[in-house]
């Protein structure tokens, strides 16, 4: 087969992985948008989400979608607690203190997960038959379809939530100016908690989708995807919700196309090279506006 068909197939693979990056990146970007914190523990929430899903399917014997809901709720609670316990007391501290706390929280989650769930690599319960749908010369698996379906659905819900609801308006107000929002009678603490809950739930879904897709979960699975999703968020313009989606998809497609057009060893390198190139020309990210950052 020609390289064009291979490239098309890689595009589908790339969009699947990219959707996962996008789901995680949304959490990074929303939290950054609202409290200017890079939540480095976010990749580990994604890992916890995968484990919550694992136990919901194996121990609670739930089908896939209810298990996903259980995992989203559980991860949202972890996210809210993380903010409440670790980040809120530091809200008026220098940003670097919170950043270090986030790294600490990340390590805490990894080690605790290793202790509680065990360090072994686990297969993910395959709660769905294996299917492949042929689309002319290329194909798409039912797992990839599941990823697209869930990711698009969640992104649409998020978009509606942020753009058209009162909660979304409050969220945007807090992101713009916390003090002014407070004066307008917005409960800033509650909005921040909700943002963490939302981001964590999205990451948890990504964890389950990846578990189904790759059939392997472990306590350190959040490190690389977490990093890549963070890069994706910066790529699209951190703090900008559609930017996270664009960045995530771009990262996924770029690293998959490299394998067809170049070498598989360069895969991770290219993902990060894309970031460097984009930031050289657009320091605020692809969708970022100039001078957004207050200096």
């Amino acid at each position, binding site marked *: 087969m020609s390289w064009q068909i291979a490239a098309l197939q890689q595009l589908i*693979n*790339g969009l699947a992985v990219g959707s996962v990056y996008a789901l995680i990146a949304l959490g990074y970007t929303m939290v950054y948008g609202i409290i200017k914190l890079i939540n480095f523990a976010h990749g580990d929430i994604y890992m916890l989400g995968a484990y919550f899903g694992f136990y919901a399917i194996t121990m609670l014997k739930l089908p896939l979608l209810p298990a996903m809901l259980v995992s989203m709720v559980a991860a949202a609670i972890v996210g809210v607690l993380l903010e409440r316990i670790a980040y809120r007391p530091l809200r008026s501290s220098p940003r670097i203190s919170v950043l270090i706390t986030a790294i600490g929280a990340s390590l805490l989650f990894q080690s605790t997960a290793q202790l509680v769930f065990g360090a072994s690599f686990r297969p993910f319960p395959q709660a769905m038959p294996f299917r492949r749908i042929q689309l002319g010369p290329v194909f798409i698996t039912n797992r990839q379809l599941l990823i697209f379906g869930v990711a698009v659905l969640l992104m649409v819900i998020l978009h509606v939530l942020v753009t058209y609801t009162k909660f979304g308006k409050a969220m945007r107000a807090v992101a713009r100016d916390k003090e002014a929002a407070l004066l307008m009678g917005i409960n800033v603490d509650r909005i921040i908690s909700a943002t963490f809950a939302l981001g964590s739930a999205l990451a948890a879904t990504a964890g389950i989708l990846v578990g189904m897709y790759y059939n392997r979960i472990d306590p350190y699975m959040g490190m690389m995807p977490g990093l890549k999703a963070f890069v994706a968020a910066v790529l699209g313009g951190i703090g900008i919700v559609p930017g996270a989606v664009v960045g995530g998809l771009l990262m996924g497609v770029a690293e998959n196309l490299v394998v067809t057009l170049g070498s598989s060893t360069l895969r991770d390198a290219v993902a990060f090279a894309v970031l460097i190139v984009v930031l050289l020309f657009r320091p605020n990210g692809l969708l970022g506006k100039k001078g957004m950052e207050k200096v």
Partner: protein
Amino acid sequence: MSYARIKSIVVCVLLVFALTVPALAQGDVIKIGLISSLTGSVSTYGQSVRNAVTMAVDDINASGGILGRQISLIILDDKGDGTEAAQAARRLIDRENVALILGPVITPSVMAVAPICQAAGVPMLTPTGTGDQITTVGDFIFRGAYKDSFQGRIMAQFAAENLGLKEAAIIYDVANDYSVGLRNAFKTTFEELGGKIIAEESYSTGDTDFSAQLTSLAMRNPQALFIPDYYSTAGPILMQARLMGMDAVMLGVDGWDSPDLSALAGGFEEGGYIVNHYSGDVDSPVTQGFIAQYTAAFGQAPDALAALAYDGVMIVTKALEAAGSTDPEALKQALGTVEAIEGATGTIKMDPEGTPIKSAVILKITNGKWELVDRIDPIGR
């Protein structure tokens, strides 16, 4: 003298006793350190190794020990990680003063520990490490398994001659010496025998997404796919490859041997071939005795890792008896010259570089079980 003073002196004296009594008792035990990967990405290997080693050591101690001394086993977990393995080795050598180190289990960990043992002059025997470079570290370094160049060659020969394959593809881990060594050996032999490697892709340790690489490979439609990696990575690769509609014959290595492979591969390992150290189908009394004892003790049949670890203890026992002491120099000499050991994996004889001369088996996964297909003697290796 005040009461408090007396009390503190008594406490001091008791403390001194507490510290010296075990030290005196240790005089008549032989301390052996075991570094095994009990947790982490290759945890089933480490657990099998620990089970078999403790079983063998308990047997030896029950029948009076070696040289009239009991064996005291100190087990440390390296989590399948080189840095942890090196720390474990330092602790065993500096703090525990072990006479010998058994392990680590996988090549990257072994390569982290071997230079430490060599520099400290403590003999080390990895029962399971297959990387070619292991025994080149020095004269204190031994292994109980065959080498990757042997293993990779056997699989290539089997693929080219027995299966009659002309074209194969390879997917391997560029960041792991084990995987790279096997890929090199397989490629060289397969091409020497007139076969062609039509496509090759690589990934890095810890990757979980192989769809890009496998898509590339699937486009070339190879007859066979060689996957030289541990079960925790080979499993997901097998599943993802089959999901892409790849119908190639899957060729594997000893790293696939794990009770967890099937779950990680989603059952798609069926029909695959591997080279291994041992098969439970071999009709030797030692092998069958080992299988019976292990199954009774741990409730599951031993894998090759367990068999190798058991034999590792046999090699060490024989060497200690021959050396007559735990003197590192004497023990090193003895380890280098052990022979005619009837182990669970066959007859063992150490070659001059510290690798035993042993046979290999080819197994096929049929209905979820490993079935013996062929047995290859180590002639002309």
